[in-house]
């Protein structure tokens, strides 16, 4: 550009180039499209329409999402040293896309309420302390703990952090590691293990022509929703599969069902037996797959009897059986609304019986490829762990308890008096990113780095095809210099205990490098240490050898308990889990607070779902405040009235109603888990979360619901147009 022909416009362009180029280059030495040297790029002039689009090149790094236990592979886009956006890792075995919780996990990383330094309780309040003081306190209160007087209480853990945790517990002479998840598939896994000999078999939605799900919200919160969503896309293509959902409250999966059936909570097993009865007696399905004892039980569940128990009309049962008979292979699933009862195990067993009867085992339910490295596998959480812990802590069995990745003070029902029981533990340490209820009741708080600031490995509980170890790497420099990764804290504690095997490692990164070096040569495929490490980090996971599994079939007892009624508390309470607030851990993410619930479209607050019949009987209108009372307590929230909840049931979503947990969560909505009755599933010992009875009444106050959109229906406009499946199969079928 010569000086003679420069005009005002060019001068401005030139200044723009220089300014942006210099600023970007001095920030870091990442490549940028706007440089003086190249000068070839289009300059975005100030008044051009795309003037706000300043192109820069992001660099992508692979990592693993930790926002729920599924552990999907992600790609983080990094510019100027900051991670800006997450995408599903297209190569990951359990993902590709990303759900809204994964997208919003960035707001956990950048959360303004993160804990940025260690805190210790002084004179009743948590006060900032240095790491030196924190370690001194640990030495004083924790390292001399007598054998068996310490415990860990965590969420799902896996990978090498799990290895270190096990080593630490061994060094301390403590075998008590409670792994707790409020949203889990523990009852389903127990039945899978008992019947198939495989707790987490592979579900082939892509091969199924019909899916019958008893409350398994596989598109929302069940097991591995992003992976299942992708498989659902295949299930709905070509010879489009039929989805039937039986549950008391419409989940995201229920909202996508071809046939949504409201059964009285707890009678799912009876419905399954009724369907089996129709299949055997009317659809000529051969019962030789089932043992005689099962056939005897099924014969007692006639259509009319099941209709009476469950409230599901007889012709609906016949219709479901028809779909299953016509469309083979099918897949029958059960989830939390079927599991959370005193007869939860039998409900799951009855659902599994349908798979056996219909010959789905080996077809749409395949053996898992179990990873050979047992020590790395996920320790999956359940709710029995919380009940056991409450009992032990209440009996004063522990001097020291470490909390990590779980918030029992918030999720425990009031009858467990969790806060009081935890208070009985003399020294409580919370390893946490956020000031949640459990963290705020601890005596020492150690600030964790975010999943996008640290090195870690993890193994997803559900491994769809091949077994894999997922890698987490820092996507950027830690936001706070005082936070530490779980791996680093565990390693420091092991060194503190003087465990020899770990003394040589400078930090957790060094340990991970060495641990990956020691993987068998077959995994490393001839690569040297650096090449193998780089490949793993670049790809985001390591394929691991697996033991070929096999499935047996031995059906357990099917007999169902009768449906209990209770005159004082005529309604059932469903504390529903949603792919949004989840178990409450996402309540501090403003994107998810503002994202309307998929079904009710309500944001930033709680609600109670009421059927129109019940509402008109009690004179309830949308937006009225309702009092929901169980034998354990009372909560009040606004009513949303629709036909997606059973007539005898009210549903309140989990996840809001925090007393702590930062500015976005605190004091926002109600927590239905608090008023759960003290009942458990008799076989598995799991908390029967869906077995609480309540009565409801109007408070006498009303307010406009915080809900997206005006009209609930299309009023005749072709906004969402619909065709029948027959037409679809004719025009686009395989």
């Amino acid at each position, binding site marked *: 550009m010569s000086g003679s022909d420069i005009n005002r416009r060019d001068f401005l362009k030139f200044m723009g180039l220089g300014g942006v180029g210099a600023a970007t280059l001095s920030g870091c030495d990442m490549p940028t*499209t706007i440089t003086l040297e190249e000068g*070839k*790029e*289009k300059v975005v002039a100030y*008044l051009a329409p*795309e003037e706000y*689009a*300043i*192109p820069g090149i992001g660099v992508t790094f692979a990592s693993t999402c930790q926002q729920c236990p599924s552990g999907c592979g992600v790609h983080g886009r990094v510019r100027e040293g900051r991670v*800006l*956006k997450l*995408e*599903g890792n297209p190569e990951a075995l359990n993902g*590709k*896309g*990303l759900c*809204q919780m994964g*997208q*919003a996990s960035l707001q956990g990383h*950048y959360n*303004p309420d993160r804990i940025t330094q260690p805190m210790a309780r002084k004179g009743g309040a948590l006060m900032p302390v240095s790491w030196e003081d924190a370690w001194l306190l640990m030495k004083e209160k924790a390292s001399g703990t007598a054998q068996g007087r310490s415990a860990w209480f965590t969420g799902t853990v896996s990978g090498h952090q799990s290895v270190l945790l096990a080593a630490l517990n061994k060094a301390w002479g403590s075998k008590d590691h409670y792994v707790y998840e409020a949203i889990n598939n523990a009852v389903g896994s127990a039945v899978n293990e008992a019947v198939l000999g495989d707790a987490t078999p592979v579900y082939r939605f892509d091969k199924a022509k019909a899916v019958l799900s008893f409350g398994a919200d596989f*598109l929302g919160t069940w097991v591995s929703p*992003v992976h299942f*969503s*992708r498989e*659902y*896309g295949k299930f*709905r293509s070509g010879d489009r599969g039929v989805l039937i959902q039986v549950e008391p409250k*419409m989940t995201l999966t*229920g*909202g996508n069902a*071809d046939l*949504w059936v409201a059964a009285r909570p707890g009678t799912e097993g009876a419905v399954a037996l009724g369907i089996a009865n129709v299949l055997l007696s009317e659809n000529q399905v051969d019962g030789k797959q089932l043992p005689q004892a099962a056939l005897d039980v099924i014969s007692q569940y006639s259509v009319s009897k099941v209709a009476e128990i469950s409230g599901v009309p007889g012709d609906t049962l016949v219709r479901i059986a028809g779909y299953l008979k016509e469309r083979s292979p099918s897949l029958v699933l059960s989830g939390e609304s079927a599991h959370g009862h005193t007869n939860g195990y039998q409900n799951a067993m009855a659902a599994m019986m349908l798979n056996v009867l219909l010959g789905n085992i080996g077809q749409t339910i395949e053996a898992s490829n179990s990873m050979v490295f047992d020590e790395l596998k996920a320790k999956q959480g359940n709710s029995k762990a919380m009940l056991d812990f409450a009992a032990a802590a209440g009996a004063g069995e522990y001097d020291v308890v470490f909390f990590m990745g779980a918030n029992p003070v918030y999720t425990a029902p009031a009858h467990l008096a969790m806060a009081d029981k935890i208070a009985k533990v003399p020294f409580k340490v919370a390893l946490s990113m956020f000031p949640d209820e459990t963290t705020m009741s601890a005596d020492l708080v150690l600030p964790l780095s975010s999943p996008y600031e640290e090195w870690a490995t993890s193994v997803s509980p559900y491994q769809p095809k091949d077994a894999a170890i997922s890698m987490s790497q820092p996507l950027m420099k830690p*936001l706070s210099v005082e936070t530490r990764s779980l791996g680093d804290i565990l390693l420091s504690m092991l060194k503190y205990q003087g465990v020899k095997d770990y003394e040589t490692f400078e930090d957790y990164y060094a340990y991970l490098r060495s641990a990956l070096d020691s993987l068998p040569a077959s995994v490393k495929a001839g690569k040297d240490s650096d090449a193998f490490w780089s490949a793993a980090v670049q790809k985001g996971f390591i394929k691991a050898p697996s033991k070929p599994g096999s499935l047996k079939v031995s059906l357990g007892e099917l007999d169902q308990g009768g449906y209990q009624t209770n005159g004082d508390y005529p309604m059932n309470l469903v504390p529903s889990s949603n792919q*949004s607030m989840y178990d409450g851990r996402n309540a501090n993410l403003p*994107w998810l607070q*503002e994202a309307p619930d*998929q079904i009710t479209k309500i*944001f*930033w607050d709680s609600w109670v779902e009421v059927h*129109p019949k019940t509402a008109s009987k009690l004179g309830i209108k949308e937006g009225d405040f309702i009092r929901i009372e169980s034998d354990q307590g009372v909560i009040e929230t606004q009513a949303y009235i*629709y*036909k*997606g909840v059973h*007539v005898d049931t009210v549903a309140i979503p989990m996840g809001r109603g925090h007393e702590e947990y930062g500015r976005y969560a605190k004091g926002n909505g109600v927590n239905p888990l608090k008023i759960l009755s003290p009942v458990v599933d008799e076989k598995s010992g799991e908390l029967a979360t869906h077995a609480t009875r309540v009565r409801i009444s109007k408070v006498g106050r009303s307010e406009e619901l915080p809900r997206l959109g005006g*009209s*609930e*229906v*299309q009023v005749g406009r*072709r*906004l*969402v*147009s*619909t*065709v*029948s*499946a027959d*037409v*679809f199969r004719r*025009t686009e079928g395989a």
Partner: protein
Amino acid sequence: MSLKNILENWSHYRRAHEDGGHHEYEHMWGMAIDLNKCTGCNACSVACYAENNLPTVGKDRMRKGQGLHWLRMERYWDEPDLGGDEKEYQERGGSFLPMMCQQCNAATCEPVCPVAATYHTPDGLNAQVYNRCIGSRYCSNNCPYRLRYFNFYSYYEESWPEPLNMQLNPDLSVRDKGVMEKCTFCIQRIRTGKDAAQREGREVKDGDVVTACAQTCPTEAIVFGDLLDKDAQVTKLWKAQEVELGKTKQDKSNGELRGYRVLEGLNTDPCVMYMDRVREA
């Protein structure tokens, strides 16, 4: 344009977009959204918040309809209306509809802007120039889809308390009060894709540009691309469904094909094609 002229030549104006307008288009960015695969999970909407620096406005402002969800997941129940005397339950589930700016080629929002802040680009996009916008809100009033969003406040003051602001995408600006905004089809990604192609000395090819919503969609229901590119997946989908741009009425050889554009009878000529949801009965 006198009233007399409008009335006399009404049928011509109604179908003016069929003449092709005045643009020599370089690209025609468009979408195909399969409602048979969409589950209404809302991942697209949150991905859009993350990509496009959308502020959260809080409960009360959201309730007043001031939320800035460029991509909004709508959910409809089957008629008859709630509490009707038909079936006891919502047996067929819900109907989900992801709605982002439809990038109409005969956009009703464009001619009403008094300052030409919204206009059509050579990429076929309906662009919004923030620093021309004076906030008359005529465009929003004229959008039949209600997909334009107004900054009633300086949301940036409260939306990103430190360090949340570090997540902001530097590829596009944060908007201030008094300005209208809407989905841009991730114009910053389009620009990046075009620059990369130019640097490599080639044409932009299918897959170079993916919008945030399409990239995150767990069921791959959203397909984005250039409708002028014959080999693009989106073009193939439009063709297979016999939906064409610039047509008031689609003449389909097969009346059972699923492709349609929302409220296309209004002649807005949207660049987003939806495919019918499918129900068993």
